[in-house]
């Protein structure tokens, strides 16, 4: 391997700060032609920020980006594209109301002599691009008529439509089926042969070891290490990524399991999930594991009354309860800490104490009239329990760090004195310190007899915290694991739908 060659793109001591968080702290990243570099790190390690800086969406606060050794700055997304950097994004950044061909060529469509968009040329070029990556649909189709996997292919085609030297793939296999993933690997090989430098971001170790040539590891916004994949093994990479052994940070718990609290029978939704059956016991922490897009959050939101299930029954303490709205859920003692904190969790614009008291106003008020003193009392009690760090309780919740916002959301729900608390990716995107605090607190809650459902995509967290784990795949329950059956291997296997024999072969 050409280890001394100049990298096509190199990020040198790049720093990016957001209010309250240092997203990147002097990180280092080199991408070489004809090589796949895997960027590895936990959620919140700074991977997305890196992608946004490389594609010109964010402007770094410090450090240098070099292309072929020459320093460059990207004023906007166009400048990065002109420099030959293109990205296939994690979130769909496509346009539903435009055709496939227009989505591929928006911003750089072929023109006719009159300066108009040359539709015929655009469609035939799009057709060719799609054919190259094995897509069979008509480029004239409206994007909204395509399924998720096909939309993803459009995103790939768009990345290839510019004459890119660097292709960034941000969790490209998260929403794909097994067969589609194989096709994507072939595509990566093709791109390598064409001499492109590829940045591959993934949570899945098997695929990193399968297709990457190099690795770079970030942790909490800092650079941890880099090297050749051939010179490292999985354990060492995990060690680099997590920076600690898994057993250390999770609180010791003695499961003290009692009677059933929640029973879910045959929950189903037309497109999102089906056949969901399980029971939850008092004082238990039940983990829900699965790949992104496996339908876990969708099911939880249905249980919380946001979406209507088409079938199914929910029993609380043995009696059937109909939950049509979150208000019903809260009244029945089920509360939900959502993954999307900014949009669904906190109400930014309202002060901390009002966020905490919002679902409990019935208790703090008197015949419908607010009693501020009671609200402050309630907010103080729970924010102290959660060790909330804030300047004052009437501070806008939007000014808090991610971890402290999460504490406000949890405090809000604990104040309602629930029976079941559902935590959806409770530690995603928050710093290690707050993470440990959330974990300890979860254990404490279970100890006090609260039943916890924890949706998590982080294997150490799932294994370290859960008494029992349900694995979901493609909207269904794939497995229920407990005790010795609960290991990183079994989780990954069930989540990906790979049978035991296949695993041994690989």
């Amino acid at each position: 391997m050409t280890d001394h060659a100049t990298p096509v793109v190199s990020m040198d001591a790049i720093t990016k700060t957001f209010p309250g968080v240092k997203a990147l702290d002097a990180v280092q990243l080199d991408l070489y032609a004809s090589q796949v570099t895997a960027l590895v790190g936990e959620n919140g390690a700074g991977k997305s920020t890196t992608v946004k800086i490389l594609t010109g969406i964010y402007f770094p606060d410090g450090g240098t980006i070099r292309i072929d050794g020459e320093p460059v700055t990207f004023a906007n997304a166009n400048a990065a594209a002109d420099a030959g950097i293109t990205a296939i994004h994690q979130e769909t950044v496509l346009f539903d109301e435009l055709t496939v061909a227009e989505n591929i060529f928006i911003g750089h469509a072929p023109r006719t002599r009159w300066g108009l968009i040359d539709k015929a040329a655009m469609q035939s070029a799009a057709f060719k691009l799609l054919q190259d990556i094995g897509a069979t649909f008509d480029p004239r189709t409206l994007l909204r008529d395509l399924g998720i996997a096909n939309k993803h292919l459009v995103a790939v085609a768009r990345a290839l439509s510019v004459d890119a030297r660097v292709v960034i793939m941000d969790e490209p296999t998260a929403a794909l089926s097994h067969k589609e993933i194989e096709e994507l690997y072939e595509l990566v090989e093709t791109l390598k042969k064409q001499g492109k430098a590829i940045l591959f971001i993934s949570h899945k170790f098997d695929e990193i070891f399968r297709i990457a040539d190099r690795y770079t590891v970030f942790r909490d916004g800092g650079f941890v290490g880099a090297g050749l994949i051939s010179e490292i093994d999985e354990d060492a990479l995990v060690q680099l990524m997590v920076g600690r052994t898994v057993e250390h940070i999770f609180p010791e718990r003695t499961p003290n399991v009692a009677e059933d609290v929640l029973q879910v029978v045959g929950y189903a939704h037309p497109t999102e999930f089906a056949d969901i059956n399980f029971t939850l016991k008092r004082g238990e922490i039940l983990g829900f594991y699965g790949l992104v897009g496996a339908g876990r959050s969708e099911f939880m939101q249905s249980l919380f009354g946001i979406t209507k299930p088409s079938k199914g029954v929910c029993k609380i303490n043995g009696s059937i309860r109909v939950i049509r709205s979150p208000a019903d859920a809260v009244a029945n003692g089920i509360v939900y800490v959502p993954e999307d904190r900014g949009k669904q969790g906190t109400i930014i614009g309202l002060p901390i104490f009002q966020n905490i008291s919002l679902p409990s106003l019935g208790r703090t008020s008197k015949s419908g009239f607010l009693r501020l003193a009671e609200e402050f009392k309630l907010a103080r009690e729970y924010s102290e329990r959660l060790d909330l760090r804030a300047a004052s309780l009437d501070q806008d919740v939007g000014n808090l760090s991610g971890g402290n916002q999460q504490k406000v959301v949890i405090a809000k729900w604990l104040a309602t004195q629930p029976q079941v608390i559902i935590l959806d990716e409770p530690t995603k995107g928050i710093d290690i310190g707050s993470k440990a605090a959330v974990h300890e607190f979860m254990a404490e809650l279970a100890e006090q007899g609260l039943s916890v459902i924890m949706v998590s995509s982080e294997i150490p967290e799932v294994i370290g915290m859960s008494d029992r784990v349900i694995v979901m795949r493609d909207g269904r329950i794939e497995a229920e694991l407990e005790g010795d059956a609960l290991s990183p291997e079994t989780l990954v296997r069930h989540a990906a739908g790979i049978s035991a024999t296949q695993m041994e072969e690989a």
Partner: protein
Amino acid sequence: MVLRHIPIREGILGAAILVLLGLVSIRYSGFIAPANLANVFNDTAPLIILALGQMVVILTRCIDLSVAANLALTGMVVAMLNVAMPGLPIPVILAIAILLGAMMGAINGLLVWKLAIPPIVVTLGTMTVFRGIIFLISEGKWINAHEMSTAFTGFSRTAFLGLPVLSWIAIATVIVFGVMMSRTALGRSVFAVGGNPHAAVYTGIDVGKTQFLAFVLSGALAGLTGYLWVARYAVAYVDIARGFELEVVAACVIGGISIAGGIGSVGGAVLGALFLGVVKNALPVVNISPFWQLAISGSAILIAVAFNARAGRSKGRIILKSAEGSV
């Protein structure tokens, strides 16, 4: 094959207009005579032109309530120019009208782009300001037909190939906008900005600037219509076209342009305007008091928006493999 390419929304609206024409012709067959239909079209031409400008603005998630005031102010300015300088050639008048309209649009656009003030507030404000300025410059007086030159008032009525120039300008605008929306980078950016502003940034499109340009276009068309309006009715005063902005928005909504942005078509806007035009012209023919018109267009807005929302409702994420095939 041909039918497959006509979008459902436009198809249904087109059919509704045809049914309407059919029903009216039962009562009075002369209504669908070519000459009368040409009259109806000419009468609807200003609405069509303004609806196209409004469409672009709404597609970018904004709204322009100042179009009617812009129209009236531009109309007054060109009428006063004509009184002061009767010799000014029509092309110069047209250029002034379009430029003046575009300038007013640019004021709206700048306030939305640079200061990020909600479009509804900006255009509510400029709407009253523009109207007030008409009063200031005209001192509340009317400019009547006899004060304007015959070339000035005659232009929009001059027949060319059997249709008045006003109709031809509307047709030309439809063609230009049809090409612009489907075949230029600006046209596609407009859809991108309204459909997914977040993603538009990723593809290097400047959301604010696109919205600014949409307001300029809408303003330019309002200015153009201002001259045509004053010429056609041969009168200019403070209150011309008062409340017309709502009819323009109504045409867009009926034409299936989503107020949430990103969804709509030139064909829809034109059909929406034609629908209102046909209703307005048909009422006297079928002996219904013209006082019904307002209530009918109000009901049409409600029906159209309810219908379009139902058709466009998202069905949630498709996760189950069994569901993927069936949708």
